[in-house]
């Protein structure tokens, strides 16, 4: 009898953990809000500050399948004065696959190797963006500590830097974060932090910078986000029905 009990226990644990992962990743859950969330990608601003949209490309089909994304936008912006270009990919889908694929893995197979990872960059929402704390995001302990002066929650992104495998005076700066309400966040364990949500946005910014001696390198992604986040709030991208 005991061998059967052990077997049943193992089967139950396997099935239970699979079911839990499925629930957290919205594997069987109908996505009632996802269509609306996907439609909001139409509201991404084309121009803001000195940045203007210069190119829009289809998202790589194989990546879209892996990420199970409901919709995506893959575009490039150029700064009118400096000529700097920032590539932005933003997509929405179930939180499971959306939260697990990070650029640390992707770019390491595309002619680059990781130089630094995990640096967090925070952006305080402007007064017009400010709203009460987002209930969904508040589930994440790391998000809960991401408050700026005065207690207002900040947008938070993770910054990684890649160097080309071949010898070139270049570096690739990549920012990424997730959003399920009105705040972009970059928790340590996104799969657990965002598990159970109906959908999740992910944004990934990338810019290539020429390195010149020890001159302080420009960070076009940082400049971009400084202008983009307020413009995104004003564009109506965030759903008014969401608490933030």
């Amino acid at each position, binding site marked *: 009898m005991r061998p059967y009990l052990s077997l049943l226990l193992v089967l139950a644990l396997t099935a239970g953990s699979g079911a839990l992962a499925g629930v957290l990743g919205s594997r069987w859950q109908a996505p009632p809000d996802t269509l609306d969330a996907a439609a909001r990608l139409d509201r991404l601003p084309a121009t803001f500050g000195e940045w203007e949209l210069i190119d829009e490309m289809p998202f790589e089909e194989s990546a879209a399948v892996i990420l199970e994304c409901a919709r995506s936008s893959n575009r*490039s912006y*150029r700064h009118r004065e400096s*000529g*700097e*270009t920032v*590539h932005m990919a933003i997509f929405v889908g179930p939180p499971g696959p959306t939260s697990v694929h990070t650029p640390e893995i992707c770019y*390491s*197979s*595309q*002619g*680059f*190797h*990781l130089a630094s990872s995990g640096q967090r960059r925070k952006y305080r929402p402007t007064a017009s963006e400010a709203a009460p704390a987002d209930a969904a995001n508040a589930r994440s302990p790391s998000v809960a500590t991401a408050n700026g002066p005065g207690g207002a929650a900040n947008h938070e992104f993770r910054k990684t830097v890649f*160097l080309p*495998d*071949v*010898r*070139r*005076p270049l570096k*690739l700066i990549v920012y990424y974060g997730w959003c399920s309400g009105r705040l972009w966040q970059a928790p340590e364990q996104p799969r657990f932090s965002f598990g159970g949500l109906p959908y999740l946005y992910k944004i990934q910014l*990338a810019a*290539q910078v*020429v390195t*010149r*001696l*020890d*001159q*302080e390198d420009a960070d076009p992604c940082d400049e971009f986000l400084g202008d983009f986040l307020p413009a995104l709030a004003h564009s109506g991208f965030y759903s008014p029905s969401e608490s933030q």
Partner: protein
Amino acid sequence: MTDYRLTTRYVAISRCRSLWLCCVLAAGFVICVLPAAANAGFIITDLGQGNTPAAISALGQYVVGQNAAGHAFLYDTLSNQTQDLGTLGGASSQANGVNDSGQVVGQAANASNVTTAFLYSNGTMQSLGTLPGGGSSGANAINDAGQVVGSSDSSHGTDAFVYDSVNKMIDITGTDAANGINASGLVTGDEPYNNFNSIAFIYDSATKTKQNLIPDDGYSGGNAINASGDIVGFSESASDYHLHAFLYNGSYNNLGDLPGYDSSAALGINASGQVVGDSYNAGQNDHSAFIYSGGVMTDLTSQLDNGAGWSLKYAYAISDSGQIVGEGTYNGVEHGFLLTADATVTPEPGSLALWGLAAAGMTLRAAFYIGTKNNPA
């Protein structure tokens, strides 16, 4: 009484055996020595901790790079003198190219810590400026006519340029960087492709025409060009999606990788078509310097005759006489190096000892045989 005919026959036999013995011994010696001659190794010269050479002139007299103090340096291999070239008023500089007249190009910071391309000639460093609307620039190579190539920021992003004293800085529109130029003014470099990748190009500075070098659309880059117009660089393979060193000499040749690595890049080529570069594993920062010569890619570290403690990582450039400059580690610390072909033929001790033993044994045997036949009692 001695049988004359018999004695003559034995003498003939012994002479024949002596000749045979001599042939065997000579062949043994040649075989013994050949491996050393065929693999004529390299003598390594330590250019110092933290000193990074970037280029060597075609005739091999000048080596340039960046020293441990963060300044461009010029090393004269004939006089064995090294010169700190200073800066444009800022903290640092870096030399990337040198011609046979000792003119040096690179990039240097000014007092405002802005970096621009420089030309060092007749003891003076001058800024070459930038393309219109640009803030910074850098020079990568110079030919004997004094034409300089590099990259510069501009009002529409970063572009490659060709500079000469008459026309100043000319924009090669639609490109990223020019990395090499030969005596005929042919230029190779990278132009942007698919966001963060590039495609190798060749540009004729006389006719101002440019074309892509690699026919397919993979990631590639041109690094150097020799007097014949042969170009080396790297390109993505459609079969394994890794980057591999290439040689373009009228047709495209994938040079492959060193054993144990899945990727490579060619960084320099000389007039004889010898290629140097580095082989590595994609996504990892482990590199081994190679030389490609006679259709074979060889790990340079294995070719050192005095290389104890050395691991050669990158071979950046090769002179027409085969001197190589690059970067490696010595006892785990980064050092620059200069390799010179080892002209001496030194047989390996083990092989020489074996040959000596064999020769002694055969001589004894032959002497015993001749003695026995001469005294058949």
